[in-house]
């Protein structure tokens, strides 16, 4: 079984790797590119721990084949901060103590970023439904939702200032 050569943009940088036809994007990110921030919690698209963006669309990377990444723009948790500067979502997750074990956190952050990209001023209910695909077993979501809403406010402020 020969491998497929894939060229993609990952977090803004060129990336290439060889993959088996059946390998998931999640496994390629983790095992071929060493980007282990995306997590496998279920492997069936039910937990959201592997959430990444493909060409601006939020997906479970465990449900995408690595070969499908050819020519695409992939964004993972590793690309959320700008160098040492945390994204407001990351900062607010820390300030609100919106993580306990932290395993679901990368997926929640990627999904929340997608929400705020699409809707800069979401209601609590909109936020809860958007993040319903990301399971967190530790927090009961309370502080997660507060952190996302708070980050949304910061981003709106930044946009107004800019």
């Amino acid at each position, binding site marked *: 079984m020969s491998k497929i050569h894939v060229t993609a943009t990952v977090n803004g940088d060129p990336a290439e790797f060889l993959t088996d036809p059946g390998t998931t994007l999640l496994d390629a990110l983790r095992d071929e590119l060493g980007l282990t921030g995306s997590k496998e919690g279920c492997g*069936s698209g039910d937990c959201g721990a592997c959430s990444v963006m493909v060409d601006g669309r939020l997906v479970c990377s465990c449900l995408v084949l690595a070969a499908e990444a050819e020519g695409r723009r992939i964004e993972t948790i590793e690309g959320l901060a700008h160098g040492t500067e945390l994204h407001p979502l990351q900062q607010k997750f820390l300030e609100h*103590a919106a993580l*306990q074990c*932290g*395993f679901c956190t990368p997926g929640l952050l990627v999904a929340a970023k997608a929400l705020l990209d699409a809707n800069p001023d979401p209601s609590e209910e909109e936020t809860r439904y958007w993040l319903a695909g990301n399971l967190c077993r530790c927090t009961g979501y309370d502080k997660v939702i507060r952190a996302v809403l708070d980050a949304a406010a910061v981003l709106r402020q930044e946009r107004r200032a800019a």
Partner: protein
Amino acid sequence: MSDVLDRPATAPQFDSVGTRPIRPDGIDKVTGRAAFGADFVMPGALHGRIKRSPYAHARILGIDTRKALALPGVKAVVTGADFPDLDEELIEGGEAASSMRDLAWNVMARKKVLYDGHAVAAVAAVSPAIAEAALDLIEVTYETLPHVIDVEASMAPDAPLLHDHIFTSGMPEKPTTPSNIAARHQFVRGDVDQALADAEVKIEARYTTKAVHQGYIEPHACVASMTADGQGQVWSSSQGHFMVRTYCAKVLKLDISDLRVTPAEIGGGFGGKTTVYLEPVALALSRIAGAPVKLVMSRDEVFRATGPTSGGVIEVKLGATKDGTITAADVLLKFQAGAFPGSPVGAACMTALACYDLPNFRIVGFDVVTNTPKVAAYRAPGAPIAAFGVESAMDELARKLGMDPIDLRAKNGARDGVKAAYGPTFQNIGFLESLEAIKQHPNYAIPLGPNQGRGVAVGFWFNVGGESTAAIHISEDGTATVATANPDIGGSRASMAIMAAETLGIPVDKVRPVIPDTASIGYSMLTGGSRTTFAVGMAVVQAAEKVVAELKRRAAKLWDVSADQVAWEGGKAVCLDATKDVAPMTLKALAGQSARTGGPISAEVSLNAQGAGPGFATHVCDVEIDPETGGVTVLRYTASQDVGRAIHPSYVEGQIQGGVAQGVGWALNEEYIFDAEGRMENAGFLDYRVPVASDLPMIDTVLIEVPNPRHPYGAKGVGEVPIVPPLAAVANAVRAATGVRMCDLPLSPPKIRAALDARAT
């Protein structure tokens, strides 16, 4: 909304305790850099896979591994024959003793498989695909046996027998025949039969719960490396790397010190990672293969082969006078243990009535083996199941008496000086305060609409202490490293840093908490039983106190005074000898001169912490029922809890909110479903539905601080009691909304629909 209620007269001022700094491991966790179990890679590591039984109960007639071994790329295959047979030996864990013989048999089956998913063989190969292919080449011949899932069916005299060596313990006389009933527990006070006969008001009901899983999002994962001379290393996510070391050494008959275990970040445990499944298998494979082996479970494996908690039957009789004084309580508990003895029914018995001061009671519990995965600890093990029955019955009693449910509980509630049903006499408890906080909470007075209902329930958990080690090293620039031996499952690094900083008198950000491997620090019991902030925190504070004593000695040396002439104030040594004209010396200054005052400054403290203060909680839940679908929406949830002292209040609130969410899932959705052959039908997050963000409202908390005098800063365990009340709080709210008492969890939409239909006819 979050409130912290102090007892004003007893509230001292702290610099760090009670503040909310950003957790020390935070940036790693929001940037994806934190390394969890499956993130660890080792050069040359092989990929392992485990073959699991498709039968709930079967005899293993033979395992032929020759074809698998012949597959190119396969480096090792192990079966039960590769593991030593162990004698019965009980080892104390965080919350329950584990039988090493049963543990070893659970890790890899011998002679029989006892549940769907039981491991029968394992392979290590150069790629995951080859390992997967090799599994299919392992030929296992089974003779299937009748199986039993239901707890009461398993107790029947004609039930299929799982083990021939179980003779019910705790009986007046040892039984002459084996059964599936491993143990009977009993706690009695007074004459409950007479008191029930005399009672003016009585409640009698039977409740059931289903097995539910801890549901941590991170599947079990490890890398193990073992050399031919018997020395091994393990990297894994668990609730205790010392536990992993001990259990692996026992299962493989190794010297404990020949194993070194390094903790990965742990992606949730809730009790489910207080035992081992993969680590001994990976070590056994590595020993044969001569290379490191990585094993990672799939979600299906997590559901089918790791610990849920028990499904149970709870029968409750309550007797009371017309004024609401409870005179009698009779509680019977029957718990599924899974394939081996050890359900949390003992703890369930001890906690069942712990919130109340009762003259007469009888609590009996049965630990029953079933053809289901061996249960593992789950957050306040056993207590939520017992509380579901008792607190539902309390709600019915309040209705019958026409009393407010909080008033009924307060009238009969445990307070200082009350002797608990399980033995000790309570001191410094805040149960009544937790009730009062809910009674006074604005949420308790919000008017309800049609199809809405409000439910109250309370809960108790012991909290534990235990063996703990902490070390503090002062760096030459005056910063500190705090090393503790307990995996951080919910922010405990932050609380360790806070307590060290408070004691040393330096800012929290000058304290770096770390969790070293088993070869680099003294022993600690695992992270469980809500013990870490209390017990490990005590070791941290004592180590910091030793460091302070040493710093005072160093200052005394520099000032040429006796050590008792030096005080430690605000992170500085202050000279009390008025004849000396010396300025106070900071920790930084003293650390910088340590080479000429006696060398590096550090301290390690190992202790066995006693005096964990028990936790009490009162919850109120508002729900709305959709009469058309039977769906339940949680509108509001408010939890008050005596937390002793909140070291980092945000993470205390988080523990409460997380426990509530798990309890709501247990009440409304979660359950193990088995088919007629005893196979789990819903081994995935699609069909085993844990609460998602849109299922829950904000969860309001009230932290009540009744300090624990046995802890230097008053801490009590906080992580477990929040899951105790929600099952009944939700069920009582559904009762209020529908007018129908539903006694069988989960209260899933079809059951609610059926209850509404039955009400209509």
